[in-house]
């Protein structure tokens, strides 16, 4: 068998991937199939599932209804569509901001002396090793009307004799965005750094020697070479943002309903696992589509994602 391992490349690949497959199939594929099956069922009065085959959960999600007021036969209920679009735009904004903030930092660390790189990396992760929820609470303390930021601004305004009314920052969409960026920034920094660090330092020098300005070097050399990191980072940020519910709950005063909140509610409060499963399936399909087109667009699909 060892001989076969040596010679058969395909067998090598299979062996390497087998532990992963064991975990994925054993733990995830089966619940996933169950979720799919449940999404086509109906909810019994006590919250359990009546198995069947009906699209009514999906129809409800897309808001197409036949019970309309005003004499129309088919109308559109935008509630869930609004939630979906709100989640997408938040995920998009968070990702863009994360890339903008992570790139200089990852670049800085990648070009730092090798002894110091790990320290810089660990320093990024130190805040992330406190508890997720407590970090969100810290932001609440900062953004409150009578919180730290307004306190500092008020004190500064006092110094200059300016009138100051505290900003209402908490319980807004902006607060949720700040919270999301804060929580997921390291997931962008790490892959970006990994990609950037691979770039041989002498390449920068070579580029300069050939007469390229720093901007040209960045656009024509650094950025393209770091693309795999950008792609990985985007996936690691975009997808979880769609599913997170804690940040929008706490920083948005539970008024901002994202698809993560919707799914959470279906399983716990509404006790309608059929609708929750349908929403989960839609969410997963949407994120898979976005991921697929994103990786395809940057021409890396052959290397990164073989779908």
């Amino acid at each position, binding site marked *: 068998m060892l001989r076969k391992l040596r010679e058969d490349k395909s067998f090598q690949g299979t062996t390497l991937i087998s532990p992963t497959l064991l975990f994925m199939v054993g733990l995830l594929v089966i619940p996933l199939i169950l979720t799919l099956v449940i999404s086509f069922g109906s*909810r019994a009065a006590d919250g359990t599932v009546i198995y069947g085959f009906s699209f009514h959960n999906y129809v409800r999600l897309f808001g197409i209804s036949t019970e309309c007021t005003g004499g129309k036969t088919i109308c559109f209920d935008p*509630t*869930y569509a609004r939630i979906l679009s709100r989640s997408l735009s938040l995920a998009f904004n968070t990702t863009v901001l994360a890339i903008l903030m992570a790139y200089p930092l990852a670049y800085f660390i990648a070009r730092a002396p090798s002894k110091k790189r790990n320290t810089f990396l660990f320093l990024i992760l130190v805040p992330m090793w406190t508890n997720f929820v407590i970090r969100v609470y810290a932001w609440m303390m900062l953004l409150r009307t*009578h*919180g730290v930021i307004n306190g500092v601004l008020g004190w500064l305004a006092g110094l200059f004799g300016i009138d100051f009314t505290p900003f209402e920052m908490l319980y807004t969409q902006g607060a949720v965005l700040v919270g999301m960026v804060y929580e997921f920034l390291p997931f962008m920094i790490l892959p970006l750094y990994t990609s950037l660090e691979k770039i041989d330092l002498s390449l920068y020098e070579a580029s300069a020697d050939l007469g390229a300005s720093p901007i040209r070097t960045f656009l024509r050399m650094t950025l393209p070479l770091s693309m795999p990191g950008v792609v990985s980072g985007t996936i690691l940020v975009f997808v979880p943002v769609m599913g997170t519910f804690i940040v929008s709950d706490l920083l948005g005063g*539970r008024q901002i309903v994202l698809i993560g909140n919707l799914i959470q509610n279906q399983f716990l409060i*509404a*006790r*309608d696992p059929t609708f929750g499963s349908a929403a989960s399936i839609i969410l997963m399909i949407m994120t898979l589509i976005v991921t697929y087109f994103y990786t395809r667009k940057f021409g890396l699909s052959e290397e990164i994602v073989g779908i």
Partner: protein
Amino acid sequence: MKSKVLWKVLATLLVFSMLLTACGGGAPTSDSGGEFVTSSGFVCPQPDQRVEVTSTELNLFVWTEYIPVEWKECFEMVYGIKINHDEYSSNEEMYAKLSAGATTYDLVLPTDYIVSLMIGQGMLQKLDKAQLPAFDNIDIGFLDLPFDPGNQYTMPYMAGNDAIVYNADRVSNPPTSWADLWNPDYAGRIVLLDDPRVVIGFTLLTLGYDLNTKDPVQLEEAKQKLMELIPNVKLFDSDSPKTALIAGDVDLGNVWNGEAFTAKQEDPAVEYVYPTEGAILWQDNWAIPTSAPHVDAAYAWINYVEQGNMFWMMLRDFPYTIPNAAALEYAKTNEPELYDAYINSPITNTPPSALANGAYMEDVGDATPLYDQIWTEVKGGN
């Protein structure tokens, strides 16, 4: 080279975690007189009636921070049973976990509406009253409620209500009824519980409907009315609504009595008012899941902690309404300041008129998704 760094950091953390195991710090002791003393200096009383127990462990699955530490220490010492204490922070999480198949818990603390659901699903076992003399300690007003007639499955633990709280310093025309919350003066100054049943519930009460209605027409009306309330709402919070009140983000709102009591401690200007349409009453109860592995230990625990000389600690730790009459008796003589603070506050000691006027939530069966849909539309509509 870089891998060495990783191993070193990981090794440091491993050593640290092992040090944690070694760290005893404050373990309960027993002195030579045969008495058991907890780490806080409390002398554990003997059980009134010692139950014969063969189990060596007890698996509790309870609300976070809802059990005095001394109870666990005393029980472990007196009975020699190890307690495994798992926690949840919402009924729904507990229900989801239990119904998905978690079978090793001996005791849970469901709230009223979840009790009837769990009974219907066959998740709870009947209590053997003969083994529970602690029932005699419970005030009769908390027994035989609609969600568990005859108390076949549950024993009351703590009770309370949801009503209106406001800061008298900042609110010039205080509300007296749920309907008052719609006053446009309060725009953006209200906190509400993030609970669809409570909020839609009190909206139904303002319209004169039943709190637990399943009628879609009535619910549609409630939805329209609730949409008008939204501009007044600054935030929804079911975790710690008093926080926004104390921080000055909001001036009034709908909270549980315990939250109001704590807020009032920080700021005496806080007032709690029972609305004219009726407050929403709730009750948490001990219940034993059907598949509990250590039922005898569960009975021993309930009997022990519901003794007057143990249960009085709830007065000290959690400012809610106490259904245990024996505990109140004990506190009257032995802990007079605690007793006075409890009895004299209408927040903890709900006046009988408010109790009579109030209503308990019940499970609404197949209307549950409808409540949730309304909730999503109302909240997601901006």
